[in-house]
């Protein structure tokens, strides 16, 4: 499911090449749809790993980290828009989304390697 979300996010990079408003809105639809998947599935992952007694902190860490990334990246996207470099902005946004998935895979491997060295992971 997470790989599906990553694949849908990659399609977001193609938005600047889409010919009309309807196609652009569909591209945005895919991006929003995939982003919701990343949120729901990442929270499901975290609540599966950690005790429900810490659900508040887990949700807070997720929402807080998302806000931090948006606060850091939106000025960059705004600057690219000012320079009319729309394709670069969409590419970077899509690449960051996919990087989130790849980072999760890599960090998951690290966690498994530390927790159970005898197993191959993820």
């Amino acid at each position, binding site marked *: 499911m997470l790989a599906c979300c990553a694949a849908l996010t990659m399609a977001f990079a193609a938005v600047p090449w889409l010919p009309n408003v309807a196609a652009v809105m569909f591209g945005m639809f895919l991006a929003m749809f995939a982003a*919701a998947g990343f949120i729901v599935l990442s929270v499901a992952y975290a609540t599966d790993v950690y005790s429900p007694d810490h659900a508040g902190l887990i949700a807070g860490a997720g929402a807080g980290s998302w806000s931090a990334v948006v606060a850091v990246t939106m000025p960059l996207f705004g600057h690219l828009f000012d320079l009319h470099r729309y394709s670069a902005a969409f590419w970077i946004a899509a690449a960051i989304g996919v990087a989130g998935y790849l980072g999760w895979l890599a960090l998951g491997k690290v966690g498994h390697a530390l927790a159970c060295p005898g197993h191959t992971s993820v």
Partner: protein
Amino acid sequence: MPANPVWGRILDRAGLRRGMSAAVACWTGASMAHAFASGFWSLGAARAALGFGEGATFPGGLRTVVQTLPPDQRGRGLAVAYSGGSLGAVITPLVVTPIFLLWGWRGAFWFTGMIGLAWLALWSMVSRRPDMRKLPPPIEAARPGPRLGDAPLWAFMCLYALGALPLGFVLYSASLYLAHPLGCSQEFIGKVLWIPPLDWEAGYFVWGWLGDRAARRGLRAWRHCGGCSPVARR
């Protein structure tokens, strides 16, 4: 941004009932304080307090879900809890704009404060229900809590924060993109700008349903190694 983990910790320590009451009381007081704003600094202070109170939304939503629903219903529960924000963004202008036109902006903030008071009254009744204070199953309670050095905690934040970044990009940039390179009029943009948040809502429910379906079949949206926990036991 810092309010999310702060409220998360408060809710985990003080409990859902007291924690959410404190958060919404803060939000309600801050909302009403807008009506007394007389300049930049007083308005800024009210906005900051409002934002701080809002920080409990997601921690409160998830905590309610894991405290009241079994694992195979939590995906849909999370969809309901988290979709409230985007649904509110759609409904609020429709409700508050007529109040603003009738009583002015101070009246609009009094109104939202009254909504907060009504929520607090409702919450004081609902949160007393015994099924709101269910203890987690022993197998779940035995799991560790997150620590800053845990790789799975960073894996989760990486997936959430970076994976969902296009969400913020679309929310804040869609109108600019439609207006400038595509040349759409403001009137047209106003007519279509509700579509991306609706897609967001749909995504919550579809992925929540798929996650629950996988959980019922004993599957997960991710694969772990041979059943062991990805967190080293402490």
